[in-house]
């Protein structure tokens, strides 16, 4: 809270704030970071293994193996979310499990599970992309803008 706002508060509230700050359990920031780092890194390691698998056993290059790898990781997370395993990983690792692409799969399926009781169309159908929808829209839209800029520069910029 900014100092300006603080000044307007009644003295009781200020007193309470000081009390609360004293009593509040501090977040173990470093520990959380370390957990997120390790689990996120582990997820990336699995992704690298899948990618290498696609390069060795299918007709994918390093360039093209990214797409099936992403799809596989998202699919695996969706399964894990359905079985209730990913929630526990998320509880433990926080951002480490949400930031990699696996967080996307989790966001889709957890929303679907959450709204299942409201029916399949208005519940699941209406809410499944509640969190992931903006991600898709932002992704597609920003990709479009970047591609547009690139095209303009390359085609008419004379490079």
């Amino acid at each position, binding site marked *: 809270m900014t100092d300006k706002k603080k000044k307007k508060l009644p003295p009781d509230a200020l007193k309470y704030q000081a009390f609360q700050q004293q009593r509040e359990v501090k977040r173990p920031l470093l520990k959380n970071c370390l957990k997120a780092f390790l689990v996120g890194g582990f997820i990336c390691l699995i992704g690298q293994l899948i990618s290498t698998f696609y390069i060795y056993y299918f007709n994918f290059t*390093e*360039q093209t193996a990214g797409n099936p790898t992403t799809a596989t990781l998202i699919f695996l997370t969706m399964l894990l979310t359905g079985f209730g395993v990913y929630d526990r990983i998320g509880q433990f690792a926080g951002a480490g499990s949400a930031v990699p692409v696996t967080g996307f799969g989790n966001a889709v399926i957890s929303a679907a599970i959450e709204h299942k009781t409201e029916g399949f169309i208005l519940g699941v159908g209406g809410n499944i992309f509640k969190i992931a929808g903006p991600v898709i829209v932002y992704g597609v839209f920003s990709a479009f803008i970047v591609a547009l800029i690139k095209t303009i520069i390359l085609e008419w910029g004379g490079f």
Partner: protein
Amino acid sequence: MNRKKAIITVSLFFLLFGCGTDSNTDQNKQDTPITGSNKLIDQQPSADAKEMINKHEEISAIKAVNNSETIVVAVKVNHSERFTLKSLRKKMEKELKDSFPKLDVEFSTDLKIFLELEKLEEEIQADHFTEDKLDKGLKEIIKLSKEQT
């Protein structure tokens, strides 16, 4: 609490710096020089290219195959050098193009291209290998290397 912090710091230290010492074990560069046991297809340009590129310390392995028009070269780059992959690629590609002005040079650092070339190199050694097969194989590899999505 202090002890805990110290343990975390030390473990972080090991975690981050533990992997930094290797990387210069490039003594075992796997270059299988094509001696040209198959007289039908001259692989001398490939052998020359291998020798040339192998001088770079950033490379851990190299494969090259050529026919009368094209030469395809693929290398494995040491992991610590992959940060400068783009400039490395540029440098070596230019070097190859300067050395083989008559051939179409395709240079790649992609693992898949490396594996495919390795396969093709082995096939060339076989007696019943024909030039048509080589052309077809090289064409496929070049097509693969051009794929974007």
